[in-house]
């Protein structure tokens, strides 16, 4: 067991013990959001970070989890199996959205993911017979008794699961295939990587985790409307969490969630509906000044310092 393993285990244990110390439901709810968005950022990171596919439509899977839970219970399914339905629906969406948008690259891919998520949002608004439209849909309670604690613990577990999945992916051949696609998709193709299948596999894992987060979020509110769970806000926040902390790192999305959730708690009474402005500003700042994110920048500095003993030669890229 390395030091980072021990550290991770201690952090996990510490996070589980928090509700025994923190008694305020309000604080626990803030912490719930923190872990929920850590999980979401980690899930997004598999596709947006490791594979380098900038998805700006992850609300599709979040909404699938939320409405999957809400609508399946209406058909008589118990609450937890309904979460499973949400996962399956999200994976189905991922198959279709991935099948369509992974043919495109760069900004076209990002636009396609936004478009797909928007189609789902508008469908949810207009299929009033199914979803209740803008009137909304009731969501069953996943827990009884000490509800907020249970939500908090679920979010901690989900974030840990997402972190463990990320760790497993980065240590596997599959993780290398994802990173090869990020580095250069054409070259990945020419060494024989089935890039379509690899990207889709990453998206399926990502969508499943995102759907569980959507179910938890919906069940905490007990009531959802399309704009809330299928909206651009969720898609953006998820991407920003990962990009702010650092794409393609495990700690990145957790750090990103910590900063973003703290900031939105501190400023929510000041700015009210100005959060979009804050997101936009943060995104521009990260892209311009911290393209590797906070964790990514620290990792890069340390790697450079370690390599300084053996100075790298100037890369002379020939024109392709």
């Amino acid at each position, binding site marked *: 067991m390395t030091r980072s393993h021990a550290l991770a285990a201690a952090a996990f244990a510490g996070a589980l013990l928090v509700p025994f110390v923190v008694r305020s439901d309000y604080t626990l709810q803030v912490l719930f959001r923190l872990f929920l968005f850590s999980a979401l950022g980690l899930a997004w990171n598999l596709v947006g970070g490791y594979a380098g596919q900038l998805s700006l439509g992850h609300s599709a899977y979040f909404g699938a989890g939320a409405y999957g839970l809400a609508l399946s219970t209406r058909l008589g399914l118990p609450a937890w199996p309904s979460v499973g339905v949400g996962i399956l629906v999200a994976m189905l969406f991922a198959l279709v959205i991935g099948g369509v948008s992974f043919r495109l690259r760069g900004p076209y891919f990002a636009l396609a993911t936004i478009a797909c998520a928007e189609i789902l949002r508008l469908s949810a608004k207009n299929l009033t017979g199914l979803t209740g439209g803008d009137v909304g849909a009731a969501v069953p309670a996943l827990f009884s008794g000490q509800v907020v604690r249970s939500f908090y613990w679920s979010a901690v577990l989900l974030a840990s699961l997402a972190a463990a999945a990320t760790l497993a992916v980065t240590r596997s051949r599959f993780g*290398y*295939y994802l*990173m*090869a696609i990020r*580095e*250069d998709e*054409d*070259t*990945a*193709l*020419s*060494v*024989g*990587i*089935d890039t*379509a299948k690899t990207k889709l596999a990453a998206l399926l894992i990502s969508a499943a985790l995102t759907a569980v987060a959507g179910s938890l979020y919906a069940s905490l509110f007990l009531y959802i409307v399309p704009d809330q769970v299928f909206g651009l806000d969720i898609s953006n926040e998820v991407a920003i969490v990962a990009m702010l902390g650092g794409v393609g790192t495990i700690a990145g999305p957790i750090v990103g969630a910590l900063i973003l959730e703290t900031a939105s708690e501190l400023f929510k009474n000041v700015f009210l509906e100005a959060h979009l402005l804050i997101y936009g500003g943060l995104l521009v700042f990260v892209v311009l000044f911290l393209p590797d994110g906070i964790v990514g920048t620290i990792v890069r500095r340390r790697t450079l310092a370690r390599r300084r003993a*053996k100075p*790298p*030669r100037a*890369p*002379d*890229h*020939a*024109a*392709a």
Partner: protein
Amino acid sequence: MSQPLLQVEGVEAGYGSLRALADITLHVDAGEIVTLVGANGAGKTTTLRVVSGLVHPTRGIVRFAGEDISRLPPHEIVERGISHVPEGRKLFPHMTVAENLALGAYSRHARARMREALEEQLATFPRVKERLAQLAGTLSGGEQQMVAIARGLMASPRLLLLDEPSLGLAPKIVEEMFAKIAEIGAKGTTVLIVEQNVVEGLSISSRGYVIENGEVDRTLGSSAAELLSNERLRSAYFGL
């Protein structure tokens, strides 16, 4: 004569509405080194991309060991034994040399003999061995090209496609590069090269083809010696 290892017949291909290849017919026999020459934009890279499945032909057929591979996706073509080392020595720059090499052994049959293949490559390219732990993007041009070729060979291919392996390299390194390619050919891998260094390319080849405006020049024979001594080619391409 048995069938050629690679047979390209009347291939037309392009990018969107742009037709890059009009009519490409050529073949490569098992054990040969064959060079494609031609001006910039003639369609040499596209020809290799058609063979490796990165571009699908709109007409014509590509056969590998007798099988029609013209509609197969790239990873299935690699699986059948064709390895493409792209133009501009496209490595994964933020990965180590060792990781780059490992990624070359993606196909199922290559994974099975990865260790063996790695040892072979390190024996062929001793300089690569010293750089295994280094990030690929920090290598010199010559080293990057060696790694790119070694990565291509990690798939244990029957046919190796090399797109301008000497591009941008110092003359001394170019010489070394061609010696390596000749060595790879002598060890039994069939090689199809695209080269601007026409004389060096043809010198290690048994045959060659001249591509002009997306077509193979059929007025010329394909023997390397004949091409090297052809007056028109000497003035057009060799600068002699």
